[in-house]
């Protein structure tokens, strides 16, 4: 039994390979004219034409190499009881592909009924489909049954189903309607036309079609699987399917999948195909040209409308791009902010220090200029005793480039521990990824020149006036966080700025000031926190 099954596998594999080879052969095989232009004779010549178009196969005229395929061809040509049969073309083609075979006595017995098991075996050889469901054990199909594997495959690929209580009835003769339902389901056929319309328009005996079969039979009809002999308008759904019927249905199923060519209009069998239409003409160099209007009509027919889409603007909340140095961006009319700064210790001391700030904007930085005004309370132990007011005049040159001039601590009251500074700065945002949700989406660079607190440490120590360069670089590494490097003119600060709550414009910027110990007495921890307000 194992040997027999192995032989069946090998034969099925060879049939499948040949079928695939034929299907994937040169375009000339797939195009209709090769069949259409063949003489309107028996399929023997067409079969040989198929052979010649399949390069892997030996020359059938070479008697020294008589492959299995050639043997099949020979069998097809010699089945004694199909000559002149209405289904001869279908039978010849399937025998040549080893999907269906004759009997040892050289007959095909086209009128013999087909059992469900036999049909499953034919499906196994005809169609290569992926499994869509798990195997099931049928109580009446033991593993020793000759068709058990074909039945399982037919079930798993969706071609056949069992009956209630997990019985398959493998030896039951299969009705025509079941064959069509099986092929429609297994091949995934469908139709957009109402099944009732198709069935009533196609078959005089449509009322005999069982309810469960109406939709799949309609799909089979629309895809030209149905072959009715002798009366094309009579489906005879509940009549037992003959071997000829099944050969015709399977061939049409293969044709719908493009695996085999459609029968030519001159073939007698084509007159029994429901809804048959001649194969489309493949254009050749001798084809009649179309008029310009016909061409334009065809183009209009083939064009597709563009899918409707919309553009969505996504506004983000962003972390900071600097620690201690100003940038050229700022608030304008409708903007405000509050914030605070904390130092673990100030320079050359062990005392912590904190500052609170509130600011608002005027003007329009994009059209004209924006004016930023910031009130800072520098002594949190006694608010309002010591404080400053700073101004920044800023202008957006482009949406990602700005310039500004600022007067830090222009107004001072009490005894703030910091002088007034005038500065000018330019800032540029480099967009690395247009979607700021992606990592490393933008790099912000600011460079400026300022007086007083921006002077070098040595100038400050010596009391020298003058100006110095400052700048900062902020890299948005992920959407809610940026890494920052900031040179204030005296020291280098490194830090990170984060948005701790998604969508909330609260910015926290912890940093280490004076990492190189260039100013003061070494690195110090500083923390900034700010909340952006947009009215």
């Amino acid at each position, binding site marked *: 039994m194992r040997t027999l099954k192995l032989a069946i596998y090998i034969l099925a594999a060879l049939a499948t390979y040949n079928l695939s080879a034929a299907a994937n052969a040169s375009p000339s095989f797939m195009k209709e004219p090769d069949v259409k232009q063949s003489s309107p004779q028996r399929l023997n010549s067409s079969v040989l034409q198929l052979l010649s178009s399949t390069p892997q196969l030996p020359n059938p005229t070479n008697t020294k190499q008589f492959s299995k395929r050639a043997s099949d061809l020979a069998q097809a040509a010699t089945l004694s009881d199909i000559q002149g049969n209405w289904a001869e073309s279908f039978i010849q083609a399937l025998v040549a592909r080893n999907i269906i075979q004759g009997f040892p006595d050289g007959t095909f017995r086209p009128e013999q009924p087909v059992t469900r098991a036999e049909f499953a075996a034919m499906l196994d050889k005809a169609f290569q489909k*992926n499994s869509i469901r798990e195997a099931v054990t049928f109580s009446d199909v033991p593993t020793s049954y000759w068709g058990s594997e074909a039945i399982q495959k037919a079930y798993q690929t969706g071609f056949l189903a069992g009956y209630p209580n997990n019985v398959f009835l493998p030896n039951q003769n299969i009705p025509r309607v079941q064959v069509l339902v099986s092929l429609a389901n297994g091949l995934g056929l469908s139709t957009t036309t109402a099944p009732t319309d198709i069935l009533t328009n196609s078959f005089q005996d449509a009322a005999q079609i069982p309810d469960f079969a109406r939709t799949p039979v309609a799909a089979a009809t629309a895809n030209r699987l149905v072959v009715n002999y002798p009366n094309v308008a009579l489906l005879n759904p509940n009549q037992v399917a003959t071997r000829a019927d099944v050969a015709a249905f399977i061939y049409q199923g293969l044709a719908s999948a*493009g*695996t085999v060519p459609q029968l030519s209009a001159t073939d007698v069998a084509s007159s029994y195909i429901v809804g048959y239409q001649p*194969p489309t003409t493949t254009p050749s160099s001798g084809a009649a040209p179309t008029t310009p209007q016909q061409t334009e009509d065809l183009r209009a027919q083939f064009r597709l*409308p563009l899918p409707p889409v919309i553009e969505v603007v996504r506004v983000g909340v962003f*972390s900071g791009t600097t620690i201690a140095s100003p940038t050229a961006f700022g608030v304008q009319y409708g903007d405000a902010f509050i914030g605070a700064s904390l130092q673990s210790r100030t320079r050359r001391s062990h005392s912590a220090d904190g500052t609170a700030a509130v600011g608002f904007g005027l003007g329009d930085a994009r059209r004209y200029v924006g004016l930023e005004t910031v009130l800072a309370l520098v002594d949190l132990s006694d608010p309002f005793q010591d404080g400053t007011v700073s101004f920044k005049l800023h202008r957006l040159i482009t949406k990602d480039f700005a310039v500004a001039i600022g007067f830090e601590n222009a107004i001072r009251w009490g005894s703030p*521990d910091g002088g007034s500074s005038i500065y000018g700065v330019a800032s540029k945002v480099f967009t690395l990824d247009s979607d700021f949700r992606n990592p490393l989406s933008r790099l912000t660079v600011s460079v400026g020149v300022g007086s007083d607190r921006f002077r070098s440490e040595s100038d400050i120590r010596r009391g020298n006036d003058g100006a110095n360069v400052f700048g900062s670089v902020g890299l948005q590494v992920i959407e809610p966080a940026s890494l920052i490097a900031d040179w204030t003119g005296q020291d280098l600060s490194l830090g990170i700025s984060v948005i701790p709550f998604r969508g909330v414009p609260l910015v926290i910027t912890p940093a280490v000031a004076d990492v190189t110990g260039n100013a003061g007495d070494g690195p110090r921890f500083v923390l900034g926190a700010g909340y952006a307000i947009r009215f």
Partner: protein
Amino acid sequence: MKNKFPHHPIRRLLLPIVALGLFSATAQAQTQSDVSGAITTTSDLAGFNFSPGINSSTYTTYTSPAVRATVEQIAAALSEQLAGGGLAVAATDIPGTSIPRSVQRALQDLLTADANAAEVSSQFEQALINAPGAANTAENTTLVRNLTSKLQGLIVDSRVEALQLRAAVEAYNAVIDASSGETLGSPPPELLAIRAVLSRLVAAASEERK
């Protein structure tokens, strides 16, 4: 103090400001504690949130989430049909035409950017470029290659990006507009397959909002 101060109006305006700054500089303390922490004299303390022109991004999508879901369902169904060789032609005005299974599988590989996508892309290009009646011009070749490039990776895990679908349809229409009547009168199966897929996706994306 004759001519001690310049008479230019701008300089008159700026001079007091500069003088104030210089005066302030001479009055500072040594630690500069109020200006050596995180900056509290500008809005930079509150992050980069005051530049709406750059703090927003625009992306293209379908008209509604329901439409997107429908497109993805159709894309999944199309993948199954292509894999099983069950793709039907889009138009009923091309009777009797079927799409070979090999073409359907190749198209699936192209749409899903399979490992052999480059190979099948070339296959489709050759089929379209060498279609009967096709113009043997560099322009036509460019249009065809643009189409295959837009189709590559169009359906990934049943997802179809709206912008990519739109670009694919535009590329397809460009090929159609450059095709001759002979080609369209007997279209190659590759073109029919592409049309079948795109037409279904466009139909899904064109459903009204629910």
